[in-house]
């Protein structure tokens, strides 16, 4: 059963064309991303099968190997039968290259045999992996995944200004053997080291020897913060122009994510039209600063910025008023409609004389900064970083206040929140207003960054992206927004091949998140406040 399932999953990825699309990128030595997709897809199924299997060592090895072989047979039959049957009729992705790939470049029969053997070997390997203790098993899996990730992102290292030091470990594409072994080894070493330290600390605490110095966590926190700031400031110098651009896109999503996190994560109001405020911020910036025919004010970036934010904020309140009485699904539908209305208005002929319709607004001015003008992605990196800083600060401080608690109470139970004396109208409207103004800020920077804006840049997909990244990072969690943005915006920017399969990947990621880690990658920490009170009371 498991074998057939593994084969079917692998076959599915093959038939939708992912394997072939990915096979152009080498990841580790001569293994391509296509191979790795197959290995991961089939491997996950086989691994779970082996984990559930209760028989003893050799039995499990045999069974999983058999299942793997079966899966290999299923996958191998596709190119084998392809000799006589025209699969292209049904599966448009079928091509001679794909056949060659799945036959390992051999004759059909030899390819089939090899595929069965490979499947069986994979099964046996994974079953063997389940035999040692949980710790080593997880360490090996983590190390493999890290190696694959580093391999996929190896282009990154070459793009860096200090890329030279990595060349001994890289092939033309992907890691070479030395690099792969090195990354794998380092990860294992780190995992083992981390465990040793954890154990030492636990032992210390158990024996009651852990000295409680109240100043220590504080100084450590400052040190971590200091290092983080230095790294963030130095990052573009190391990364170079292209990667800074990628980071900028991530950063714009972080600002939006922080805003939507207030609306969805704190106040629990599901808003699917969030892109509308981003568009309004961008269009306001465009109209006010453009030197083209549509520009109305010829403001500088800094003069126009408050207008962008205020326009978005007012729109947030205007949208908030009609939906005050709505909850859950209904709210989502109305806000979804609002987002589309803004986009369609931007496209409309009616407003074309003012905002350019499908031609958009061009020649948007770059922000001046003292005697200079911010033009390159690296310049903008710092502007966006400052924007994130402000948004982060505001979101964090609001969370720790009467208003933040009111939002969260409303998220948990609206009726009871009202019975606690919380004015639902103003509390909801402030949530919408803050969320919208963050989005407006992001939109304003975006307009200035790309220099020209078009209605089609503001489609529903952006709203969905922002919502997904919040869910992946952890609903209501500020660091989660950053993690989510890196994972859902940064990775796809870097992995060009994924573009076509982005939605499939999102779907997979969201399903996996819901099943395995529903609280997100970096869930909101529980605030420990009672102890602090007691300490200060002593």
């Amino acid at each position, binding site marked *: 059963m498991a074998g057939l399932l593994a084969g079917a999953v692998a076959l599915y990825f093959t038939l939708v064309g992912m394997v072939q699309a990915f096979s152009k990128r080498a990841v580790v030595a001569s293994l391509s991303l296509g191979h790795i997709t197959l290995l991961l897809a089939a491997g996950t199924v086989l691994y779970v099968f082996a984990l559930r299997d209760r028989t003893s060592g050799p039995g499990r090895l045999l069974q999983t190997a058999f299942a793997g072989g079966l899966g290999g047979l299923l996958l191998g039959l596709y190119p084998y039968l392809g000799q006589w049957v025209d699969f292209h009729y049904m599966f448009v992705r079928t091509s001679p290259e794909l056949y060659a790939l799945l036959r390992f470049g051999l004759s059909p029969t030899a390819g089939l045999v090899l595929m069965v053997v490979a499947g069986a070997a994979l099964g046996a390997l994974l079953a063997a992996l389940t035999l040692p203790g949980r710790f080593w098993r997880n360490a090996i899996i983590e190390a493999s995944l890290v190696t694959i990730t580093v391999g996929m992102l190896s282009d990154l290292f070459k793009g860096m200004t200090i890329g030279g030091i990595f060349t001994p470990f890289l092939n033309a594409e992907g890691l070479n053997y030395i690099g792969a072994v090195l990354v794998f080894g380092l990860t294992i070493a780190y995992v083992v080291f981390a465990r040793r330290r954890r154990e030492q600390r636990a032992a210390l605490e158990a024996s009651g020897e852990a000295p409680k110095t109240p100043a220590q966590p504080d100084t450590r926190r400052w040190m971590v913060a200091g290092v983080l700031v230095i790294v963030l400031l130095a990052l573009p110098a190391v990364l170079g122009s292209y990667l800074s651009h990628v980071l900028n896109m991530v950063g714009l999503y972080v600002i939006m994510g922080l805003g939507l996190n207030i609306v969805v994560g704190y106040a629990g109001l599901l808003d699917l039209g969030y892109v509308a405020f981003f568009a309004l911020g961008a269009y306001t910036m465009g109209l006010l600063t453009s030197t083209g025919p549509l520009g109305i004010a010829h403001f500088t970036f800094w003069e126009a910025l408050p207008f962008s934010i205020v326009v978005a904020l007012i729109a947030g309140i205007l949208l908030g008023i009609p939906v005050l009485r709505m909850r859950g699904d209904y709210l989502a539908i109305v806000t979804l409609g609002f987002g589309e209305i803004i986009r369609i208005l931007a496209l409309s002929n009616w407003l074309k004389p003012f905002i350019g319709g499908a031609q958009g607004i061009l020649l948007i001015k770059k922000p001046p900064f003292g005697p200079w003008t911010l033009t390159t992605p690296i310049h903008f990196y710092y502007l966006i970083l400052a924007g994130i800083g402000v948004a982060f*600060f*505001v979101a964090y*401080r*609001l969370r*720790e*206040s*009467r*208003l*933040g*608690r*009111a939002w*969260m*109470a409303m*998220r*948990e*139970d609206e*009726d*009871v*929140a*009202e*019975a*606690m*004396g*919380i*004015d*639902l109208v103003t509390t909801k409207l*402030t949530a919408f207003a*803050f969320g919208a103004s963050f989005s407006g800020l992001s939109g304003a920077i975006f307009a200035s960054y790309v220099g020209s804006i078009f209605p089609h840049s503001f489609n529903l997909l952006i709203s969905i992206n922002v919502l997904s990244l919040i869910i992946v990072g952890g609903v209501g969690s500020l660091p989660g927004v950053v993690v989510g943005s890196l994972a859902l915006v940064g990775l796809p920017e870097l992995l060009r091949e994924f573009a076509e399969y982005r939605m499939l990947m999102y779907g997979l990621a969201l399903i996996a998140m819901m099943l395995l880690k529903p609280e997100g990658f970096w869930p909101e920490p*529980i*605030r*420990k*406040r*009672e*102890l602090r*009170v007691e300490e200060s009371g002593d």
Partner: protein
Amino acid sequence: MAPILIAKGVTKRFGGLVAVNSLDFTIEEGSIASVIGPNGAGKTTFFNCITGFYTPEEGQIIFNGHEIQGFRPDKVTRMGIARTYQNIRLFANMTALENIMVGRHPLMHHNWWDAILHTPRYRKEEKEALAEAQRLLNFVGMSGLGDQMARNLPYGAQRRLEIARALASKPKLLLLDEPTAGMNPNETAEMIRFIRHLRDELGLSILLIEHDMKVVMTISEKIAVMDFGKKIAEGKPEEIQRNPRVIEAYLGRGAASGLGGSEAAATV
């Protein structure tokens, strides 16, 4: 004693159903009063009329000298009425301390800009709120549980936390909707002591809805009995225990006549 709450002819209809039918009720300041009655008698609807969840179609509710019928729930809470719920409704994904601090919302006044800039007003209010939350946590016997998520607390602690949250708004009148529901006899006895303690220590007036007759008879100074939305009796516990209409409402007509008869025979 002056009355803290007066309900005059309160009527609430849902379509054709009259859930509360021209109800009159008075609670003296500093007293413990109860509303009892069979399921569906309209007790919780009456609570909801007082706290502003429902607007009664007719009648007046006068709290502390002000008419409050038709006010929004948050306004009613600001005037000094707090409540708990029949099925516990805590903010599940917030810690116990945060739950109590939400309860203090009406007493705090800092704004979003205070919070962002950490103005002196913000610092002062937050400090007070945290200290007060801690104090209330100790008061309901939950010190040490403050950083637990509300959903992870044991049942009895959740009930007490709900009361602490209600107390955080410094109410003059506390409405408790079945505070001993689902408790064992020990916990119930504990809760009776606690409710008395609340009144004696904090000088609150308390209105209870309760099904457990032992609880009602032990702590109430005044009881109103409702059936089909109407008040069918009112008085001291001993009066209520003897009232034939109450027995009829609870046990049915036949039982009431039989009981009344045998009781009459016994007393003669």
